[in-house]
């Protein structure tokens, strides 16, 4: 009832937002001054090649026709040809997206799990050395840009401790598992290739940690703050008065309400994570969508840029819907509000 209409409402809202985003991107890549084709191909390419490309992208039509044409094709999964590789952008995306998804998922799970764990540990051992250590770590995580972490890891692990590899997704002498999902760890698990799985996992560690530090720290800080706040509340004192064990209060009755603010900002932290992927993939030579995107941006490959931004937009919007559902699941007050609003 309430929940289903809530999800439906969120989906419709998201479609509107994505349409708006497509318009924004369109304005960005097509209406910007100058000839995008000439800018991408460089001055030495003959005029007839440029003209053919312009015709293909319908650049000489009025803007609204161009937009309708572009959005229809985009909805069909056709992002046009890349101006630099001349391949269909959709194929490039198919090739590079799984690597980014693997990294982002791994980093996202790591971020949420450790953020909450550290925050809770910090709150329960308030003012102990553990609490202080976690708070210093969380502060460091918030104020340090992802690329600084990445460069630091590169230095430490690349030159001094050879515990984790610092480049690529698999060791050079390792045979890649057949592509099923495109995620190395998942594919190797599916094919039972244990060695490739472990190696893939090892390659994930450094980029994932570098990616998740900012969000992890934010999560830890918010979890700590809201737990400390809730532990003072009357209902926790009441639980104790009625004889519930401290353990069950900490792990369940105080933790659940405290997770609401933490989960609410999970979406934002995931956005920060996708942003930082642009830097981290570059540094760890991770063959993902973000590295592809950076190159597209530097080369002014407008079709590829539009596609990458659109794909990331869809990803982010999906994550936000999921986050909203989890928050509604955690917080009955939100569910009530939804039930009262929509029938």
């Amino acid at each position, binding site marked *: 009832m309430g929940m289903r209409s809530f999800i439906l409402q969120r989906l419709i*809202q998201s479609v*509107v937002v994505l349409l*708006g985003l497509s318009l924004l991107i369109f304005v*960005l890549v097509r209406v910007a001054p100058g000839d995008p084709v000439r800018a991408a191909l460089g001055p030495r390419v003959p005029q007839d090649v440029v003209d053919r490309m312009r015709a293909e992208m319908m650049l000489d039509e009025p803007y609204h026709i161009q937009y309708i044409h572009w959005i229809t094709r985009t909805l069909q999964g056709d992002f046009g040809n890349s101006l630099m590789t001349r391949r269909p952008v959709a194929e490039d995306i198919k090739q590079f997206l799984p690597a980014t998804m693997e990294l982002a998922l791994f980093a996202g799970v790591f971020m949420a799990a450790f953020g909450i764990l550290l925050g809770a540990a910090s709150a329960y051992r308030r003012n102990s050395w553990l609490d202080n250590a976690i708070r210093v770590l969380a*502060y460091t995580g918030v104020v340090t840009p992802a690329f600084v972490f990445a460069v630091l890891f*590169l230095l430490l692990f690349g030159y001094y401790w050879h515990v984790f590899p610092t480049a690529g997704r698999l060791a050079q002498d390792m045979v890649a598992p057949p592509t099923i999902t495109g995620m190395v760890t998942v594919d190797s698990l599916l094919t039972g290739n244990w060695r490739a799985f472990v190696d893939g996992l090892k390659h994930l560690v450094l980029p994932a940690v570098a990616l998740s530090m900012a969000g992890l720290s934010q999560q830890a800080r918010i979890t700590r703050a809201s737990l400390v706040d809730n532990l003072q509340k009357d209902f926790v004192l009441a639980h104790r008065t009625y004889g519930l064990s401290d353990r069950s209060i900490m792990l369940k009755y105080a933790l659940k309400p405290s997770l609401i603010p933490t989960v609410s900002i999970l979406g934002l932290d995931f*956005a920060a994570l996708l942003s930082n992927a642009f830097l981290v993939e570059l540094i760890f030579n991770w063959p993902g969508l973000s590295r592809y995107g950076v190159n597209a*941006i*530097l080369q002014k490959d407008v079709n590829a840029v539009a596609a990458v931004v659109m794909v990331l937009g869809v990803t982010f919007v999906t994550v936000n819907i999921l986050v909203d559902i989890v928050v509604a699941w955690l917080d009955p007050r939100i569910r009530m509000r939804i039930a009262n609003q929509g029938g």
Partner: protein
Amino acid sequence: MSSSETAAAHDARALWWAMKRDNWRRMWYRFTRNPLSVVGLVIVLVTGLAAIFADYIAPYPEHAGAFVDFGNAMKPPGGQYLLGTDPVGRDVLSRIIYGYRFSFGMAIVVIALAAPPGVILGLVAGYYRGTRIDSIIMRITDIFLAVPPLVLAMAITAVLTANVFNAMIAVTLMWWPWYTRLVYGLASSLRNEFYVQAAEVMGASKFHILFREILPNCISSILTKMTLDMGFVIIIGSSLSFVGLGAQPPTPDLGTMVADGAKYMPDQWWLTTFPALAIVTVVLGFNLLGDGLRDVLTVEEQ
């Protein structure tokens, strides 16, 4: 108008100022109780002053530009060059100080451009919550928030030419919605306060209600956010430069310095380490200061 009335008004004004002064003194006292806040303030002041007076403070101001002195290239820290020199012989310390000038400049410009429209839109949408104005403004905000921030900034910079000016525009374009969101939440709850409703009953103009009744009560949250954002804009700016989409050489920029220096690791470690530390330090400063401000201002409100 009798003179006794003016005297009374004068007294009232004097009293008001005295209370104001007293408030400030108490807030300052609370602020200084927390050593971390003071550390934050000191960091911000020292780095900010260094940025402003870079020409007088930097040991080699001419090294900020396209200066070349191969004879002194790659000098390790110490002696004549406190933090060492880069591959073309420029003083790292001087370039960090000028890098601060750029970082601060960018952060100030971005926030000065992004906050006012964001705040105004948030005020309007929050006050007219539930109406069409609200949904139009907030949907537009959602669109800008639908892309991970750095991605949008990079896309914008890419389409325009990669330079400092366009980087600022790009970051500004993605930054205003956060202020709209913040103020929207505050305004939509403040509009139910008695003093706002009283002003409405007395027939005050919408302008008066928005800017004289609601806005003053959002100021402390906005100020806190602006302070914290100084740090985060510096991170975004240096990230853009790190990829090559921000400041272009030879402009000294901390992100560019880290990126360039990374090629010379681990032997010439000072090329990356010091600029990286410089970023972390200033962002830490703004964070500590912002948290301190928040503590003082929220206590003051209660």
